[in-house]
C-alpha cells in the first residue's frame, strides 16, 4: 500500500487560513489501511479544525466526506455538484488525491493534508516499513525476495557496501542492512552462489529517470 503521515496541524491551519467553508476529504484506499486518511481520520482532523475555529471565535464550517478512492475519476465525480461550494478542500489521500481533485475542479483550491511517504506494508499494528520504490523492473527474486533498491540506503545491486556492521546499515543502528539479510537468506536457501552474479548498472529508464510514467492497456482502453 501507499503509506503516509499526517501533516502537522499548524501547517494545515495555515493552508486554510481565511478559507471559510472547508471540506476534509478522505479516501477508502491505502490511506484508510495505514490509518492516515480514512473516514476515522477525516473525523479527527475535521474535529480538530473545528476546535481551532471555535477557539478563534470563527464559524466552524468544516465538513467531512470520504470517497471510495481519490485516484479514480468516477468517484471524484461524486463531488461534481458540491465541490465548488467550498473555499478549500483538504485531501488526506496520497498525493494522487489532491492532484486528481484539482484537475477535476480547477476553481477550488485543494490542499494535501498528509505527506505521502512510501510504498510498503504493515510490520505490526501501527508500524509500517518501506518495501518498493516502483523501479519499473522488479528483480527481488534474485535477492531472496528482499529488494535492494528500496531497502539498501544506497540502492546497491552488488552489496553489501563496506559500511555494513552487525547486521545494521551504516546510516543508523535502527536500519537493517538489507544486504546482510539478503546474504543470510540466500545462504539459508542454499542459493549463495547466485550472489556471485555481478549486476551491471541498472537501467533506470523504467524508473523515474525516464520521466513521468504512464501506462496504457490497449486491451482495457475504451
Amino acid at each position, binding site marked *: 500500500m501507499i503509506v503516509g503521515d499526517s501533516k*502537522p*496541524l*499548524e501547517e494545515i491551519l495555515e493552508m486554510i487560513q481565511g478559507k471559510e467553508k472547508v471540506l476534509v476529504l478522505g479516501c477508502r484506499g491505502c490511506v484508510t489501511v495505514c490509518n492516515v486518511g480514512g473516514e*476515522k481520520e477525516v*473525523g*479527527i482532523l475535521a*474535529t*480538530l479544525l*473545528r*476546535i*481551532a475555529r*471555535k*477557539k*478563534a*471565535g470563527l464559524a*466552524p464550517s468544516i465538513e467531512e466526506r470520504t470517497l471510495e478512492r481519490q485516484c479514480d475519476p468516477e468517484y471524484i465525480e461524486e463531488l461534481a455538484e458540491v465541490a465548488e461550494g467550498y473555499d478549500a478542500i483538504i485531501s488526506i489521500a496520497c498525493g494522487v488525491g489532491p492532484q486528481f481533485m484539482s484537475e477535476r475542479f480547477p476553481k477550488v483550491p485543494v490542499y494535501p493534508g498528509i505527506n505521502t511517504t512510501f510504498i510498503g506494508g504493515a510490520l505490526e499494528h501501527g508500524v509500517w516499513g518501506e518495501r518498493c520504490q516502483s523501479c519499473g523492473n522488479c528483480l527481488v527474486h534474485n535477492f531472496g525476495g528482499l529488494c535492494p533498491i528500496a531497502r539498501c540506503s544506497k540502492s546497491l545491486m552488488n552489496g553489501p557496501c563496506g559500511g555494513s556492521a552487525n547486521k545494521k546499515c551504516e546510516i543508523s543502528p535502527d536500519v537493517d542492512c538489507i544486504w546482510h539479510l539478503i546474504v543470510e537468506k540466500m545462504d539459508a536457501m542454499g542459493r549463495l552462489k547466485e550472489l556471485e552474479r555481478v549486476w551491471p548498472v541498472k537501467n533506470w529508464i523504467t524508473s523515474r529517470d525516464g520521466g513521468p510514467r504512464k501506462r496504457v492497456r490497449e486491451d482495457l482502453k475504451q
Partner: protein
Amino acid sequence: MRLQYPTNIKIIQLPCSGRVDILHILKSFEDGADGVYVAGCMEGDCHFLTGNLKARRKVNYVKTVLAALGVEPERVEMFNMSSAEGPRFAQVAREFTAKIKELGPSPVKQAKAA
C-alpha cells in the same frame, strides 16, 4: 460507601478504558468540555491485557494535538485506579476538577460565547 465527588463530572461508562476513542475525547472538547479524563484499571491489571496502556497512548496523542491548537494539554489526563478503590475515584475526581478550575473555562468554549 457513600463518597462525595464533584457533581459537574459527567461519567461515560465504557467496558474497558481501551475502548476510549480519540474522536470521543476530541468531540467533548469541540462541544465545550473544560477537561476530560480517562479512568482505567491499574497498569498490569487490564482484563483485556493492554486496554489501559492503549488508553494512555490515546490520551497522550490528544495532549499533543490540543497543544498544537493552543489548548492546554493538561485538560486531558489518564488515571489508573482499581475498581475496589472508591475513595481514590472520588479523590481523583476532586483533584482533576480543582486543576481544571485553576485552568479556567476551555478556550474553545470562551470563543464560542464571544
